[in-house]
């Protein structure tokens, strides 16, 4: 029986259609042997002393946008969540929830992107699941991935509550590219833009950073809510203040321009390939140099410092040399009109 052009409820019913979907579309795109299968569960052994475990679900509109797609996001996002604990990514699961009527070709393209991303990051898909739901129950495709990674022995505790007064905050590059790229693609904004999502796996950048700054206290990737949310989380969890220097925060010129036009603040825009690190002052210069040497970190900068003043809040020194609070983002980002 040919596989057809679109996903039907039968593809999720567990019978022959499901089997064909997995063997003809999913396994080959993941680089697997179509005669093999993804087991319902996998037995793990000898992965290491300390493991990191994470899960995340992915939905984005449009599914393909300049610089990335939902497939890349689903792998990189989970790789990055593992990397933010300092872990080296090892294994990943792949859960798909498909809307009835989804084009098979589109699904194939997405799974191929997932396959490429797992090859690139050397993470292995070891278990998976596919469900099909009726039209309107999901927006085309939702992807869930869970990941397991191993922590190198020399790494201490890296967590949002570890920042201390005197520490230094760094960002690994320009902020806001992903948020603007997706918004421009989703809303079909009628101006052309060259802005691409920064969507990238950060585990090698983290490994580079941790070799240079082994006492790194916090690592976060500022995705939804942007740097403003991430820095506020660190300030609250560690009961410290964070003081940023607006002049030091890297933002691409085109992103700055479009953000101005739409009334959005780059600090609040999502990123998919940046990290924010808090490191002890004595390791800051080494951390910055290491980040800048990596191809994903060449625009890195020191953006602020951790203080004992104003605990649990983030303050920014503006380009006008005044100070104001950087709030937790509120509500959904809606562009202004004029």
């Amino acid at each position: 029986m040919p596989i057809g052009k679109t996903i039907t409820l039968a593809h999720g019913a567990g019978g022959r259609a499901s089997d064909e979907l997995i063997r003809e579309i999913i396994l080959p795109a993941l680089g697997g042997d179509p005669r093999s299968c993804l087991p319902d569960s996998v037995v793990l052994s000898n992965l290491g002393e300390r493991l990191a475990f994470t899960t995340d679900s992915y939905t984005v509109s449009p599914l393909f946008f300049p610089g990335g797609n939902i497939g890349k996001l689903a792998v990189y996002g989970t790789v990055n969540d593992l990397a933010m604990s300092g872990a080296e990514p090892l294994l990943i699961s792949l859960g798909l929830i498909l809307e009835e009527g989804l084009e098979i070709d589109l699904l194939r393209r997405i799974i191929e992107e997932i396959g490429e991303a797992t090859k690139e990051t050397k993470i292995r898909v070891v278990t998976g699941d596919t469900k099909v739901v009726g039209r309107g129950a999901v927006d085309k495709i939702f992807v869930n991935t869970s990941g397991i990674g191993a922590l190198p022995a020399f790494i201490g505790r890296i967590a949002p509550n570890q920042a201390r007064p005197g520490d230094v905050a760094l960002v690994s590059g320009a902020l806001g590219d992903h948020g603007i790229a997706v918004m421009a693609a989703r809303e079909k904004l009628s101006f052309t833009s060259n802005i691409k999502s920064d969507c990238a796996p950060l585990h090698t950048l983290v490994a580079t950073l941790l070799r240079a700054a082994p006492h790194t206290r916090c690592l976060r990737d500022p995705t939804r809510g942007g740097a403003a949310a991430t820095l506020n989380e660190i300030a609250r969890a560690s009961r410290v203040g964070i003081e940023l220097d607006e002049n030091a925060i890297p933002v691409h010129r085109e992103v700055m321009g479009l953000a101005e036009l739409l009334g959005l603040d780059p600090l609040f825009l999502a990123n998919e390939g940046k990290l924010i690190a808090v490191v002890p002052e004595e390791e800051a210069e080494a951390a910055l140099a290491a980040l800048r040497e990596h191809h994903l970190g060449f625009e890195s900068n020191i953006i602020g410092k951790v203080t004992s003043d104003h605990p649990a809040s983030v303050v920014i020194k503006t380009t006008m040399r005044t100070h104001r609070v950087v709030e937790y983002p509120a509500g959904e980002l809606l562009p202004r009109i004029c």
Partner: protein
Amino acid sequence: MKFISEFREGALGSGLVRRIERLSRPIRIMEVCGGHTHVICRYGIRDLLPPDIQLIHGPGCPVCVIPQHEIEKAIELSTRPGILLCCFGDVMRVPTRRGTLFSLARGRGSVKMVYSPLEAIEMAAALPDKEIVFFAIGFETTAPSTALALKRASSQGLANFKVLSTHFIIPPALRVLVKDSSSRIGAFIAPGHVTTIIGPDAYCFLADEYNRPVVVTGFEPLDLLQAIMLILQQAAEGKPRVENQYTRAVRVQGNRRALEAMDEVFEIRPAIWRGLGLIPGTGLGIAPAFAPWDAEKAWDLSQVEPAPEPPGCLCGDVLKGVSQPKDCSLFAVSCTPDSPVGPCMVSPEGACAAHYRYRGA
């Protein structure tokens, strides 16, 4: 010229602040436009000024001055069968007695966010079985694009496109404010983008009849500091006039083509401004020649009655410059950007939202 970063230079700002300090005198300056309010709060401009100089916020946030019941008319239309309501994003979160356009978009209403009325025109052409209603809001900055959409609907004979107009025009509202003794406005920072359309001469009456300095101003922190300096210079010379600080965007004659399009499709009518009440000559209704595209003529919306202000909300006084956001007992307590009570907490250009989001350290 990069047009952004060089207008945010701290060193140049310090130079302007020193000149402002030398010229300082007690004065209340109203920035009319919500865009200016946003920049003043975001860059902490107040902290740079001598205490004698007070900046007071004006009514120039389009989302803030629309009466609740006008938004309820849009909500009413969006719930009727066969109608798809198109609107700008920032009006979608304004709370009304019937919820928000945003909640309707997620629920039973038929609401679509657009960036331009021309998108609504394209939708009308693509969906001939639907009535596409564009909820037109804003001042002279957005009115020309609505005018263009109406002209296009007329030339393409798009019978299924309608406009629900709540456009306002600014200058007559400034006359009301300057005459209002409770506002005590000594000078105006005039809106930059509105003036690209109407030209600086539209404010001459403020200088000629009411002796108030007026400076048409751009939207970066250095623009605002320079405008304040120019106002103080005018005050020191005792020669109030209209000056154009925003020369990189505003031309003396304004935008003729935009004004002609507005003249053709709109007619001036009285309008109710939230906080300011009824002001003659400040509303833009749709001219008789374009009546077939007027949503208010196509559907009877008279049952949507004016709404009382939410209890305790000071948005009305904030829009007149009589009160500051912090004077309101709801501010940052029950009224926050996550769950706004009044409209000034909704748009980033609203005074309350700007104060909340960019409070001083």
